[in-house]
């Protein structure tokens, strides 16, 4: 009788480092995100406050004299890992922090649509389906079969393209492993300037761990976001200091 092989899986802390100086604000990440996650085209009544935006790019005007380049800040769910504001408030456990990946997961099929999580999120990174999603005739064929479209009345947000992570898990399982290892979210793949780095903060060799000095927005709130930023522009760093953030190097062990 052979001893069964005990397969273990190391917990991951997936996160991102976004290089603000590299981002050109082209919006390729937004398009890739929407296509990957089956975000329906907005209705004519929609605006930037009512549409589904899992990823937004903010333009920040440069306060210095004319001619200086503005900064572009891609913003999605920051995957907070300490006192995660949205996880704590959801009344029916539709939001969870996965201890194996560090990803804050949203379960639309359990969501009541109370929007308390949206009120709790300091980054305004959550979108509500104010109406039923609608794809123009023929466009249904472009839907990603690995991502379930969400119905009206539920909240959604960036989950680091979990369908891609599941695909990576399946591939790993086929090779006898439980660890999905490295995979690439759609926005990271689409960025033409490689401004978005993705990886495991606990892996010292991952792109995020080797990214150098980084900062997080609203670091003073103490929610420990796993999406961090970097910029060599002093005025961007000064802006990040508002809300208690201070540029610092991310410790590899969190």
């Amino acid at each position, binding site marked *: 009788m052979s001893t069964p092989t005990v397969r273990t899986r190391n917990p991951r802390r997936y996160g991102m480092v976004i290089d603000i100086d590299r981002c050109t604000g082209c919006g390729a990440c937004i398009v890739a995100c929407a296509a990957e996650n089956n975000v329906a085209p907005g*209705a004519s*009544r929609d*605006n930037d*406050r*009512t549409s589904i*935006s899992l990823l937004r790019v*903010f333009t*920040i005007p440069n306060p210095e004299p004319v001619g200086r380049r503005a900064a572009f*800040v891609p*913003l999605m769910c920051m995957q907070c890992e300490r*006192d995660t*504001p949205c996880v*704590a*408030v*959801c*009344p*029916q*456990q*539709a939001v969870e922090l996965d201890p194996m990946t560090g990803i804050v997961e949203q379960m639309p099929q*359990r*969501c*009541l*649509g*109370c*929007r*308390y999580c*949206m*009120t*709790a*999120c*300091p*980054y*305004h990174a*959550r*979108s*509500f*389906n*104010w*109406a*039923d999603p609608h794809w123009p005739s023929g466009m249904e064929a472009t839907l990603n079969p690995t991502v379930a479209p969400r*119905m*009206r*009345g*539920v*909240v959604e947000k960036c989950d680091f393209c979990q369908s891609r992570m599941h695909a990576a898990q399946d591939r790993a399982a086929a090779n006898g492993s439980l660890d999905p290892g490295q995979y690439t979210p759609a926005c990271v793949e689409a960025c033409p300037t490689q401004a978005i780095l993705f990886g495991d903060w606990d892996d010292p060799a991952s792109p995020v761990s080797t990214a150098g000095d980084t900062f997080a*927005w*609203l*670091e*003073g*709130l*103490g*929610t420990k976001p796993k999406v961090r930023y970097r910029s060599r522009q002093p005025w961007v760093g000064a*802006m*990040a200091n*508002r*809300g*208690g*953030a201070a540029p610092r190097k991310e410790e590899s062990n969190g």
Partner: protein
Amino acid sequence: MADIPWVPAAMFDRKFVPRGAARCGTAQFSLWLTPWFFLLGLGLWAGYLCLRDGLYHTNMDNRFAFGLWIFLDLAIIAFGGGAFFSGVLLYFLKLKELSAVIRSAVLIGFLCYSGAVTVLMVDVGQPLRAWFTFWHPNTHSMLTEVTFCITCYLVVLSIEYLPVLLRNRQIRKIPSFLVFEWELHKLMPVLAGIGAFLSFFHQGSLGGLYGVLRGRPFAFRESFGIWPTTFFLFILSAMAVGPSFILLTTRLVEWISKRTLVLESVYVKLARISGWMLTFYVLLKSVDTMVWLNSTSRRGGFLPWEYYSWEPFGVWILFVEIGVFGFLPAVWLLRAGRVPTRSLVVPALLACAGIALNRYVLTVQTLALATLPFDEFLSYTPSWQEVAVFGGVAAYGVIVYSILYRYTKLFPQER
């Protein structure tokens, strides 16, 4: 307007009016109810639109995820706090004067709570999933506490009010109802205790909803045990404003019905209770505000003056809430007995306005302010559907109160 004796409905209607109670004619009563039914119909239509098509009929958005409905829900639930507080004062502290208004207070509590639940059912995106909170409760969420308390308290309020309904002279003719009413009556102190406990927690957890929002430095507060200070302030403010609201509504019903409903001493008692509770609340609110401005907010990296640099939410709003709608009515209410009783309507109104302003600030200003340094301050104007749904709930309250005032003895001292 006189009765129309040849209308069978009018004769039927008269049979249900309590003996000795003077009520207007059937036609006049119908005329009074007509505009409220119209408003109720409009509210039902607006609510139907939201349920049928989705919440895009509202002007809420991804930033203003809460709006008029949540603000008014919080306000009317505070006003309905008179029900639980009066119950405690009457059944446990034996303030017998309050027996003159307890039935009306319980009815107002029931209407406020049931109205709030109705609006919430339109406000949430998937109302049919409301039971999930009982099936998959997140015990760390203040909203779970709110849901459990509001549901249980609504049941308790319904049972508490049932004896008054069963006392109608036509219903009393059925012997089993009479026995049932008598048995329920014996349970009242127990129900008042359970109701007070549930409502106590419910009011508190509504305040806790905002106080725990670490990501919203404008709302986030220090904690005592597992609850933020807003938990305790909401309970106190509901206890302060509840008696004032009973005073106001009783005066209003007196004015509309042209009857004397309670003795003047009852108004004095209500005003003094409200005045003491309001004083206590405003003092603690002032201390809480100072701690928040000087410590809590700064620790999160936010300078308090930033919150008040966006018009119309200037510093004036803080002074109005604490001074004009806080200390001023508190002092005035405490002078009850030494000032004309009729003038107590003014401080009672100011106290109610203060609590409504507090709920408004916590709901709307919290969401209007941006947390990210590069995000913008936003404004929000409710859509007609949002206003109509709430108008419908107000109409429901007026209709049910009017009908029960007409057919039951809401005020035992009525003369």
